[in-house]
C-alpha cells in the first residue's frame, strides 16, 4: 500500500470510486432484470423500476419449447465441448510441459494462431463443409468448432499449471510403496485439478457466450443455443413486442453465469491473468 496513513478524505475518495464502479457494473444488469418483470404495458414506460410487476415473462418462456429446447442445447453443447476440450488440452499440455519432442513450438504457434483467428473467416467455408457432411444444425456441428477454439486457451493455461507441479512427488510416492495408479490419483491429480477446473470454467463461458457460430450453423431449435434463439421470440400476439420475454431469457441465461463467476472468482482471475504479464 502506498499510503502509510489514510486521511478521512482519502477514504471517502476511494469509497466514492468503489461505488461508481459497482454502480456502472450493475445498472445495465438491473435494467434487464427490471424489464423482465414488467408487464407488456409497463414495458412501454421508460422508468427504471417496473410500475406493475409480473412473473408472466418468466412463466411464458419457461413453458415455451422455443426457449427450453435452446437452453438444453446450450447446456449440453457447452458441457460436452468443455469436457472434450479439457481432456484434449490436458494431453497436449502435459506433453508441452513434461516431454521433449520436436514440433513443440509448432503446436504453440498453431494455438496462438487460432487464438487470434477471426471466426467470421470460417463461417463461409465451415457452413459449406458442414452442410456437405450433414453436421449443419446438429450438436456436433457446434461442438467441433467450440472444442477447436477452446483448445488454445486450455493448452496455454494447463501447460502453465503443469509446469508448476512438483513431479518428484510422484516418484516419492512410488518409493513409499504407492502403485503408479495411486501415485497418479492421490498425488498428481489433486495438484492438476485446480488448473483443469479453471480451464473448464473459461471454456464453458466461451461456449455459453458464443453467438456467431450458433446463428450460422443452426437453422432450427434442434441445435440452436439460447443466445441465438432469443431473436426468434414473439410477444403474446403479433402486435406485442417481445421485450419482456427476451429480457427474461437474458436474465435466465445470465444469472447462473453471474453466480458461477462470483463463486469461482479466484479461479477465473487466476486463469485470465496467469502469465499474461510476462513480456
Amino acid at each position: 500500500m502506498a499510503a502509510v496513513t489514510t486521511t478521512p478524505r482519502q477514504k471517502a475518495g476511494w469509497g466514492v470510486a468503489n461505488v461508481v464502479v459497482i454502480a456502472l457494473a450493475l445498472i445495465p444488469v438491473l435494467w434487464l432484470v427490471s424489464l423482465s418483470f414488467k408487464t407488456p404495458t409497463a414495458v412501454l414506460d421508460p422508468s427504471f423500476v417496473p410500475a406493475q410487476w409480473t412473473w408472466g415473462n418468466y412463466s411464458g418462456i419457461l413453458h415455451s419449447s422455443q426457449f427450453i429446447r435452446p437452453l438444453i442445447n446450450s447446456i449440453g453443447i457447452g458441457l460436452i465441448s468443455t469436457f472434450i476440450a479439457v481432456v484434449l488440452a490436458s494431453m497436449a499440455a502435459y506433453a508441452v510441459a513434461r516431454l521433449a519432442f520436436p514440433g513443440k513450438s509448432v503446436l504453440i504457434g498453431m494455438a496462438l494462431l487460432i487464438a487470434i483467428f477471426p471466426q467470421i473467416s470460417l463461417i463461409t467455408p465451415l457452413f459449406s463443409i458442414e452442410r456437405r457432411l450433414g453436421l449443419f444444425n446438429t450438436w456436433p456441428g457446434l461442438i467441433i468448432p467450440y472444442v477447436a477454439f477452446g483448445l488454445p486457451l486450455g493448452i496455454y493455461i494447463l501447460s502453465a499449471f503443469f509446469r508448476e507441479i512438483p513431479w518428484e512427488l510422484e516418484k516419492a510416492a512410488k518409493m513409499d510403496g504407492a502403485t503408479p495408479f495411486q501415485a497418479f490419483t492421490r498425488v498428481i491429480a489433486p495438484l492438476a485439478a485446480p488448473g483443469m477446473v479453471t480451464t473448464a470454467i473459461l471454456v464453458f463461458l466461451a461456449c455459453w457466450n458464443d453467438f456467431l457460430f450458433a446463428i450460422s450453423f443452426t437453422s432450427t431449435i434442434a441445435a440452436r443455443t439460447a443466445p441465438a434463439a432469443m431473436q426468434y421470440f414473439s410477444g403474446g400476439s403479433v402486435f406485442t413486442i417481445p421485450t419482456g420475454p427476451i429480457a427474461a431469457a437474458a436474465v435466465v441465461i445470465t444469472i447462473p453465469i453471474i453466480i458461477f463467476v462470483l463463486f469461482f472468482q479466484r479461479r477465473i482471475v487466476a486463469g485470465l491473468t496467469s502469465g499474461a504479464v510476462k513480456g
Partner: protein
Amino acid sequence: MSVNAQVAAGTETVREQPPSHKRQLSEGARAERRLGWLLCAPAVIVMVAVTGYPIIYAVFLSLERYNLELPQAIKFVGLSNYGAVLSSPYWWQALKVTVIITVFSVAITLVLGMLLAMLMYRTIFGRGTVRTTALIPYGIVTVAAAYGWQYAWTPGQGYLSAAFNNSAPLTTQVPAIAVIILAEVWKTTPFMGLLLLAGLSLVPDDLLKAAKVDGATAWQRFTKITLPLMKPAILVALLFRTLDSFRIFDNIYILTAGANGTGSVSILGYDNLFNALNLGIGSAISILIFICVALIAIVFIKGFGTAAPGTDSGSR
C-alpha cells in the same frame, strides 16, 4: 467475448529444450518423442480440421463464382471476387466502421481499464467486492447485455433514451456507433482491468515510495515508473483487445443489425453468406478479414515488440 482474448491470459512462455539430440536417439528419448506426438495429435487434428482446412478451402472458394442460388453456374473466376469486394463501397464502409469502433473502444477500454486496475489494487476497503462486481460484465452473455442496451436506448421504452430527451440514437449512424462502442467498452473493461491489475502488481512498491520521497508527483510516478514497467502487460492486453474488437459481431447484430451504415466487416461477411448466399464473394471477404487480422498481429508483434504469447522472449 471470444475465447481468443482470454488466451492473453494463458500466455505462458514455453521454453524449448535446446535441440541437443545427437545422431542417435536413445530408446527412452524416442519413446518420449512418440508419446509427445501421440498426446498432441488429437488437439492438432481438431484445430487443423476446424481452422486450417476451412481457410484453405476458403481460398479455393474465393477464386470461384459460387452462388448457392445458382449451383450450376460454379466457375473458376480467378481474382475477380477480390476485385468485386475491393471495389465495392460496402467493404470500405464496413472496414471504416470496424476501424473506428476498434480504435475508440480499445482506447477507452485501456484508460478505463487502467483506472479500474488502480482502484482494484489500491482501494482501501471493499477491494473484494469491487473485484467481484467488476467480473459481472465479463461474465454476462454479450447478446443478453446487447438487448439491455438496445431497449435502454429505445424511445418510449428505455431509461437512457428518456434521460437523453427521448433520443433514438440507434437510428442514425454516428450515435449508433457511439452506443455500440459504449456496449463494447462496458463488456470488455473488466477483462482489460484484470490483465492490467496483474501487470500493476509487478511494479515494486519500494520504487514508488523511493520516488515519492525524492519528491516525484503522483503523475510523474505513474508516467515514469508504473507505465514503463507495465509496458509488456499493456501491449499484450492491447493486442488481444484490438484483435477481439476487430472481430466485433454480437453487439452490432443485436443493436442495429448493421443498419444505417453501422455494419462491421464481420457483419458484412455474415450478411453476404446468409442473405446473398454467395460463397465465392463470402470467402473473398473471409480471406480479406483474415489478412487484416494478421496485419494487426504483425504490427503489434514486430512493430511494437509485443511478446507474442508462447514465443521465447519472456523470462520467468
